[in-house]
């Protein structure tokens, strides 16, 4: 009986946590709608978030994209001719980079860099009573602290995904030059003739969903810190773990919807 009671308690805690999380998400969306309609002291937070999440991640994203693009090309150019399907190289590049790896790897980078930073920063603010201080001066923490981070992460996610795609295809071009020198015009022409609007839309949809997940999960975990400073690193770990799981689930879901 004790085990059943414990399971019941755990299920109830999980259910109430989920409801609380959904309520938090609803509040974030509601305040986001209001953010640009009024004069905000939160613009500075938004700009800083875009700088940190977007601008400062450009280098790591570029290196990763070039390496992945090159790797796909190396694998593809050695495997595809064996099946007489060399012409599929461009389709594979577009599908793998634009639809899948671009948004997914960018989301992982943002989770690792910004997700942990957001959760630990907000957790520290909770422990130091800084959140209460914002409420005391009349600033809504959701509006002032969460919404700028939410918008900043989503915008950065979209921009970085496009950036990843460009550098991923550029990395591929570098390998093409080493293996089979091709004029850039010809290479780009072949890519553009393969690229469809659906590819772009699919990648950007995933980027948008992943950006929402990373920002909402990280801010939620930051605010979940209660009193002790030892809870702060735990919040960071939970933000990363939950974001990764939700991103992968969302990736599968969006892919299923697009291919169904």
């Amino acid at each position, binding site marked *: 009986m004790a085990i059943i009671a414990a399971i019941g308690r755990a299920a109830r805690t999980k259910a109430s946590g989920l409801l609380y999380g959904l309520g938090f998400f609803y509040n974030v969306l509601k305040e986001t709608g209001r953010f640009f309609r009024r*004069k905000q*002291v939160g613009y500075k937070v938004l700009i800083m978030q875009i700088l940190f999440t977007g601008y400062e991640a450009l280098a790591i994203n570029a290196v990763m994209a070039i390496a992945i693009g090159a790797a796909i090309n190396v694998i593809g150019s050695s495997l595809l001719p064996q099946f007489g399907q060399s012409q599929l190289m461009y389709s594979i590049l577009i599908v793998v980079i634009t639809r899948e790896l671009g948004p997914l790897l960018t989301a992982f980078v943002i989770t690792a860099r910004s997700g942990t930073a957001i959760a630990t920063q907000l957790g520290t*603010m909770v422990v130091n009573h*800084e959140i209460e*201080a914002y409420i005391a*001066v009349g600033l809504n923490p959701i509006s002032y602290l969460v919404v700028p981070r939410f918008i900043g992460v989503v915008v950065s996610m979209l921009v970085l995904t496009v950036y990843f795609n460009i550098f991923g295809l550029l990395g591929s071009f570098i390998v093409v030059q080493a293996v089979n020198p091709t004029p850039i015009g010809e290479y780009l022409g072949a890519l553009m003739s393969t690229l469809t609007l659906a590819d772009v839309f699919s990648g950007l949809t995933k980027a948008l969903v992943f950006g929402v997940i990373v920002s909402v999960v990280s801010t939620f975990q930051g605010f979940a810190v209660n009193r002790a400073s030892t809870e702060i690193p735990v919040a960071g770990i939970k933000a990363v773990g939950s974001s990764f799981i939700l991103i992968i689930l969302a990736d599968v879901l969006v892919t299923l919807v697009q291919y169904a």
Partner: protein
Amino acid sequence: MPEKPSDPARPAIELRDVRASSGGYEILDGACAAFPEGLCSVVMGPAGSGKSTLLKVAAGLVVPDSGSVLYRGAELARFGRRDEAAFRAATGFVFQDGALWADQNILTNVTMPLRVHKAWLGPSAMAELARETLGALGYDEGMAFRPAELSAGEQKLVSIARAVIHEPQLVFMDDPTANLDEDAAERVYALIAKLRERRRTVVIVANSSELAYRFADRLGIIKGGRLVAFGSYEETVGTAEAALSGSIARLKARGERAAAPERERRGVREPDAGAENSQAGDV
């Protein structure tokens, strides 16, 4: 929300049977108190008795598990967005540990209430006000520093300046002289005296009996999450059992104070003691 104050007999903030807990521990256990408009109320009690939580509940920073908190007769829990904004514009809060924003410099920390509630003031006017307010408290460090670069006492002064810079009607202070040297504490006493002169409602929770002796128009004693005594200074000191609090014993030892004439000069009408006791519930 009710408009403009000024009936001193009416409580600015009233707590009715408030219970609050944190991490599964009960902190407030049916606390009742009525902090009158335009007067200075001081609540004392031992460490861990629930003073800070009482103040945060009264200021709407902690949502109680049950019971109600009323601001000029209107329940805080029912406030809409506009009421909430008006309440925050009319109040200031001094945190026990300063609670300054670590990623903002001192100027931004102090001027934030002005940027929120008096945005029509330009940046230079806000900076000037910040310098004046901090100067009156004896803060003589730069405005571009981050809180981490200041001592605990200086952080406290900045926190006090942030709470009063927008001239609120109601000021909550959590141990305002903690971490301060004697000179700085005297300047804080001068600030509280000024707030009283201007008939601001001041609610202080403190460990120091000095604050109660100097400023308490109303004195409360909190123990185990309950206000075991709450009334006029003389009433509480005279009737509360010294055993309830060492602070009461110390205040008794200091004898009568010459504060009554000052209150008369300020024209503050004393609320009916019986009525107040009924508001204070568990006195």
